[in-house]
């Protein structure tokens, strides 16, 4: 993966003792990174809210101590809840995100839009290396893009993923792959 200055670097979840509260949003197995980061820190968990994308009926994951735990069936429903928790968060709340790259792209854009910056946000990548991509031509947004080039699911144009990332949109730019040689596509590669 190349070095792009516009792209956030996903790190490790790093809950700070001095934070007044912790707001966590995790997708699927991303919850395991959350459990690991908070292990042995029950004091922090008692001030934590966890929003988790997990199937209806799944059990509450072990290791979350006294945290308030909310399960949501899809990313969209979880992010709606996450946004609402963010809007009501008290000063000094630290935000933690864990999941696939496409999930981190979208969830961090929500956090950025709510003014969460710097040490106020920690992230950890887990799960498949997929990206969220916006087609620059029709502006359609696509989650979980694993391969480049690919056809835009909205307008059908063949896209390559340019090494340019917008934190506001939470997405990479997809640009026509064969404009200068219609129908001729570079070999597919996975992220």
């Amino acid at each position, binding site marked *: 993966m190349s070095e*792009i*200055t516009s792209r956030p670097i996903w790190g490790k979840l790093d809950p700070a003792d001095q934070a007044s509260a912790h707001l966590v949003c995790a997708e699927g197995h991303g919850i395991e990174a959350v459990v690991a980061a908070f292990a042995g820190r029950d004091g922090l968990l008692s001030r934590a809210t966890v929003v988790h994308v997990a199937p209806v009926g799944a059990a509450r994951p072990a290791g979350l101590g006294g945290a308030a735990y909310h399960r949501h069936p899809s990313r969209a429903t979880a992010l709606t809840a996450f946004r609402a928790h963010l809007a009501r968060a008290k000063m000094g709340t630290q935000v933690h995100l864990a999941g696939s790259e496409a999930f981190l792209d979208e969830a961090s854009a929500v956090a950025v839009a709510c003014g969460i910056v710097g040490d106020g946000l920690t992230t950890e990548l887990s799960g498949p290396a997929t990206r969220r991509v916006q087609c620059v031509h029709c*502006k359609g947004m696509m989650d979980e893009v694993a391969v480049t080039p690919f056809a835009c699911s909205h307008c059908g144009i063949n896209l390559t993923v340019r090494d*340019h990332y*917008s934190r506001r949109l939470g997405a990479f730019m997809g640009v*026509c792959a064969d*404009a200068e040689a219609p129908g001729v596509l570079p070999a597919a590669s996975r992220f």
Partner: protein
Amino acid sequence: MSLAFDLSRTPSFFRDETFRGDFTFENSPESIRRFPFPFDRDQYMYAVNIEQHMPGPPKSATAFPIDIDEHYVAEMADRAKVLAEDPLRCQSLPHMITAEWDLLELLMTSMARDYPQWFSLHRDGDRWHWVNRPLGIDQRFTFGDAATLPYGPMEYVTRQCQGDFCLLDQRDDNLWLDAGIVTSQADWSLDFDLGMNFIEWHGPVPRAHDMGIFERALKFLLNLQIGRPIRRLNWTMTINPRLDTSPENYHRWGIDRTTVTPENVGDKVHLRVELQALWRLPRSNAIVFSIRCYLIKMRELVTVPKWGRRFHRVLRDLPADLADYKGLTNYRATTLEWLAPYDDGAPTSPGFFPD
């Protein structure tokens, strides 16, 4: 001024031409002479090429802070078409409204002062009266009250001023691209870059990050003072005189790059120069970044022998990564063959200007 008939006082000074479809754009001989040729030597590499935006020689592209030329009316018509098709080309985050008014003031006062035959501005407190004769506009409005204009202040004034404009908010020791109108860009997207900082929006540029160019340029800009604007030149190449080479429309114009033949280089291949100027704004402390695009056909360029020689050498020796980034790779060889007869190997004089 000579006693000869002054063309600039007649409506016919402005060319009736297009930047799409039949592409009838061309430069008059006077326009060629004043072209802001960007190479002061026979080779090119990125640098922190910033200088004070001081008045240049009379009639040159830098004679005035804002340059209005024979392409003005046609360029404004092209901008209106782009905006009609894609409103995302003009965007402004809510905190930028004061900077928008600052920009309107900067442009209207410069244009009225330097081109009184075309524009006038009368101010009575916050009651302003703006007249734009080439575009047939006569507008009274209240400065600071957006409801008295048909568009937001930035969009209103930049629909009447050549060049793309970005408004940069300064905070956290960085500049943030929080507003702009961008309809004649060299393959970058305002909609995508909106909200990014200086280092982020320059992400795709090769080499310059490692050369420390962006770090130094940013430091310089953060200290930009009111009343001391600066400028720099940037360049690329465009096939057909197309102003709107946006990524949004790349699937439409990219194919043009494959249409260059030895027969049509002179007409089809253009050097595209951006005269970029930056001003600190008084009320908002924001910075305006103007990107004024000048196009010149290869057959026009070689009418200045020094430019023909020099551009042949620059293009020949341009490193491959820069050529790829600028999108020249498909037609570089054909263009070089066409330019070669204009380069007799004679030495060129230092500096930008024709000999």
